[in-house]
């Protein structure tokens, strides 16, 4: 290998600073809107495909397995299990699994004693008060251990 001797990677940059003010207004989509309405009612909804006999979150109008239309929504169980977790400072984040449902839900986890956390532990969502729900993922305030 030969290198350009000018290329020592140590010289100083001459910077130019710029910023681009961009803002987006997204559509939640057909399945996303249903999921959002479910959150407002304190429910986590999965889509189901009766051909594949599968439910999945996040819900989708199509089945990833057979690529046909999904045929409805089902509520996931009230308690899930901890698939994995990670932490930084006071914050714990988790991926939660629900029985019989493909897909995990990512969210915050609040626990009194982090050392007790174990993969496979039962966890449940804690919703904010109904009056202040907006149909956002943050309508779930956090997950907690269901023991």
């Amino acid at each position, binding site marked *: *290998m030969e290198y350009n001797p000018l290329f020592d*990677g140590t010289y100083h940059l001459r910077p130019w600073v710029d910023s681009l003010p961009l803002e987006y207004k997204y559509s939640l989509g057909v399945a996303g809107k249903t999921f959002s309405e479910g959150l407002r009612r304190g429910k986590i909804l999965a889509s189901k495909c009766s051909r594949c006999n599968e439910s999945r979150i*996040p819900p989708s109008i199509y089945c990833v397995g057979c690529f046909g239309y999904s045929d409805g929504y089902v509520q996931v169980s009230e308690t899930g299990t901890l698939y994995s977790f990670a932490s930084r400072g006071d914050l714990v984040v988790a991926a939660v699994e629900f029985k019989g449902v493909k897909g995990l839900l990512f969210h915050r986890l609040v626990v009194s004693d982090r050392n007790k956390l174990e993969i496979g532990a039962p966890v449940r969502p804690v919703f904010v008060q109904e009056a202040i729900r907006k149909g956002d993922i943050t309508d779930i305030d956090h997950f907690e251990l269901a023991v």
Partner: protein
Amino acid sequence: MRKVAVIGAGMTKFRHRMLETGRELSFEASRAALDSARMDIKNVDSVVLGSAPDAFDGLHMKGEYLLDGAGGSGKPYTRVYVGGGTGVFIPAAAWWHVASGVSDVVLAVGEEKMSPLQPHPQYAFWSIFDQFLERPLGVTLLWIFSLEMRRYMSVYGIKEEDIALVAVKNKGNAMDHPSAQLPMRITVDDVMKSEPICTPVKRLDVSPTSDGAAALVLASEDVARKYTDDPVWITGVGWNVDTTFWTNRDLCYPEYVEKAAMMAYKMAGISNPGKEIDFAEVYDPFDYKELHHMEGLQLAKRGEAPKMTREGVTQRDGDLPINPSGGLLGVGNPIAAAGVMKVAELFWQLRGEAGRRQVKKPVHRGLAQAWGDLMQVGTVVIMER
């Protein structure tokens, strides 16, 4: 399909922040690759360039922006993009240009300039998450990699210390790479005591953000034989992409990597990869990912890559050297350029031109792999001499 050779490779240094623009980096790497192939841009029929998210540069149409630095002006030019998997996808895409007979000579360029984005390149990754389900929770890539690392450790009972051995090996290997950004002699203890970023991921488990470029020259058999007595052949390519919902797959085993590898193995006529691959450049943006990917590539049984690492099998003088270059952990991780660097390492190793990095045993067949997008893509190239 026609046989396809690699006849030249070149790269810039990888650094956290370079004076050179992306175009200039692309030029430096392309020029070095052409010089190594003893070719000029007029010999090149088409150019395939890869670069990861436009958000690093704040430049939309980054492929077009980089075009003239990559020698693509006035030629059939394609930018390919599969996130972190891009670097190994570039030579795969260049391969099909030559194999199909569309082009005789293709310049394949990987460029990444991550440093412009303020205050840190990581912020670009906010834009890859789901707008509704994930962004409101402030999710970052490091969080989801931590979830994946913990799942992997938990299912197979793997210790953090075993994972740290990968960082020790790769940063050590990079001591012999002239382009390396983070060559280091460190111990497992150094990794364990490094700053926790998102537990269980620590500072020294992670590759750096980088600027850099790397390039290859691919040629048809008749052209290759005119320019070199020593062509290295691409005998297998494979790629596979899973859903963007990272939550909807097994975080413990990269099935998409297995599928990409199987596609490449089938093409190369390989039935027992653990025995038939002499060495590999496996994607290692995090130390646990090298282990994860060795398993997906069938170079290790599930959960056994840490044991092979502990036993020294993956060292340069081991039975199956992994990342003799120093990998992303040691050489650096300018995303698309890092993958091309891995394929360039196959080229240098197979030709016996890797200098102090040359693996001890004779090598005839190597594999390079990259991974990326939202933990969803595997890209594989197999080369033989």
